[in-house]
């Protein structure tokens, strides 16, 4: 799988004193692929990025760029372009000076430096700003210049260190789209560090979820969201309902249910691979995979009973806070139809039914 990969990390490890920041991270980024390292602060994602960029020396493991071992190379011989969180534009240089810095360090000719600067400025649509100084630009413009600077240096791979976190929400999503489109157009392999799962899903071909210095799961956005490999991934990738109950045989016929006592039953469908009747297990259901109906309106055994405490209108959807018998809380996301004011009439006792395939089994203990 690592044949022809742009970047391969092989068992990277790094400790700071007694703190093991990164513990054996292995992964590969394919040519032209956009991979996000996603995790909470302190999970080791930034440490990993800094080891790739050469600012930290790993205690163990290797960094391979196009098959070449660059683990011991200094930062200035690595050929990976890093986009900094605060952009790190040189304040004493103009936009032109900043963007031309990379080619200048590569000792390119005057004409080639000029061509590169123009090319990079056009890519980020900042053609008219060459003579400005960084402090004369807005945050979004500084970001574009920083992108142009990295691209003009001609690195074979891009590293993004939470570059959107200083932008306001609207500008952030626009820059995410622009960077992703630019990345696709140039076909440049990119590794992106973020703690924002929405950003990771919006931009990535694959997501690497990290926790406490280790890789929890690697997969496409749909895979890590829909089939999380661990409790941590399930809960980090989005809101999640955790239901604990006892495995029991469905009353009439085939299949298995999860019995939650008075609250009712949840059909486990195909989710359970190794059913053991009587075992106590936990399953996870995303809030948007549940449906509500007035109490008693639903036939069959695979139904939970509860009471709607509160409904919040959120624009694209509404959130209903439901309490099950036995006092388990449940969050349900309901689509808002056009013209409706949300399912505000749904109060009091309700039936809750998971959509088919909604139940996610997650290996315990991880």
């Amino acid at each position, binding site marked *: 799988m690592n044949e022809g990969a742009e970047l391969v990390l092989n068992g990277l490890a790094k400790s700071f004193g007694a703190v093991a920041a990164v513990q054996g991270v292995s992964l590969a980024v394919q040519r032209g692929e956009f991979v996000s390292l996603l995790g909470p602060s302190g999970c080791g994602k930034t440490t990993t990025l800094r080891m790739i*960029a*050469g*600012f930290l020396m790993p205690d163990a493991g290797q960094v391979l760029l196009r098959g070449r071992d660059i683990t011991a190379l*200094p*930062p*200035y011989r*690595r050929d*990976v*372009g*890093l986009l*900094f969180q*605060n952009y*790190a*534009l*040189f*304040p*004493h240089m103009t936009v032109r000076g900043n963007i031309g*810095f*990379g080619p200048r*360090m*590569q000792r390119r000719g005057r004409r080639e430096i000029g061509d590169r600067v123009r090319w990079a400025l056009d890519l980020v649509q900042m053609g008219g700003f060459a003579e400005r*100084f960084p402090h004369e630009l807005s945050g979004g413009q500084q970001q574009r210049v920083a992108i142009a*600077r*990295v691209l003009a*240096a001609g690195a074979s791979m891009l590293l993004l260190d939470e570059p959107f976190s200083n932008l306001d929400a609207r500008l952030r999503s626009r820059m995410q789209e622009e960077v992703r489109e630019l990345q696709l157009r140039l076909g440049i392999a990119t590794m992106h560090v973020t703690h924002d799962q929405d950003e990771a899903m919006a931009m990535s071909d694959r997501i690497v979820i990290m926790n406490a210095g280790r890789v929890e799961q690697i997969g496409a956005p749909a895979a890590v969201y829909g089939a999380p490999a661990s409790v941590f991934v399930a809960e980090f990738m989005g809101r999640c309902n955790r239901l604990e109950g006892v495995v029991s045989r469905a009353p009439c016929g085939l299949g298995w249910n999860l019995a939650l006592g008075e609250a009712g039953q949840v059909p486990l469908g195909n989710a359970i691979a190794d059913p053991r009747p009587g075992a106590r297990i936990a399953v996870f259901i995303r809030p948007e995979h549940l449906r509500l109906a007035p109490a008693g309106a639903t036939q069959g055994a695979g139904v939970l009973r509860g009471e709607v405490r509160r409904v919040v209108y959120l624009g694209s959807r509404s959130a209903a806070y439901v309490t099950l018998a036995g006092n388990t809380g449940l969050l349900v996301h309901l689509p808002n139809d056009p013209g409706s004011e949300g399912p505000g009439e749904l109060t009091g006792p309700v039936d809750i039914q998971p959509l088919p395939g909604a139940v996610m089994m997650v290996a315990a203990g991880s």
Partner: protein
Amino acid sequence: MAAWDMKARGIGGALLVAYVVLFFVYLESPLVFILLASFNKGLTVRFPPSGFSLQWYSALWDLVREVPGVKPGLVDAVVTSIWLGLASTAGALIAGTLAGFALYRLRFPGRQALRQLFLLPLLFPQIVTGIGLVLWFSRIGGVPTWLRLLLGHLILTLPYVVVTVTASLETLDVRLEEAAMNLGAGRVATFFLITVPGIRSGLMAGAIFAWLTSFSNFTVTFFLFSGEVQPLPPWLYQIMQYFIDPSIAALSTCVLLITLAVLLIMNRLLALGRLVGLSQ
């Protein structure tokens, strides 16, 4: 707005203003006194001045041409002081920047203690430094006067540069240097193209302190100068033993102007690294 504020503060505000004015007058009184004395008509300085005259400046002109019994002359002393100031500033900038960079960037045990040690010469009584240097140089022997003066003044000027450079290194964003290296700049290129411009204000402050310290130093200089190489402060001291009249005041005014001129030139020179007049 300001007037309204004053009114609102009433008598407290008035007292504050009076205090600030008095304080300022006290601080600047030697300067004012010298200016008044240099333009005074009589031989003694009176307040209010007894009349305006440039006679002491023309008397100064005679001093410039020839001072009976004192060699070298005033022009030599001024030139010596300016060069000594510039040389010790340049030396302190280079050595102090490297030391400051090492103190800031290298992590080694005892780093903080060493940093305090660098400041020690500022705390020594200068007379101790002066005597120590005289003893040392007479033990070694054969050190030319200009080198003795330069080495002595470096001890006085280095701490200022180390202090100002480490202070501005601490506010410099390390990511700028990382970005430069990421773009292919080696460590030397990064230092000169990113670090040095980034600590420019610290270098400027250090240079100004260093030059002023060297130019105006009397105590240590007094122990190190010799007949043929005389910086201005000991030269003035000797002159005053012969003449004590307001031409000394006229000379002091001129020294003040020279100091200001050199400071302005240094400010301009060090700002050149920025290409444009951006102040940070």
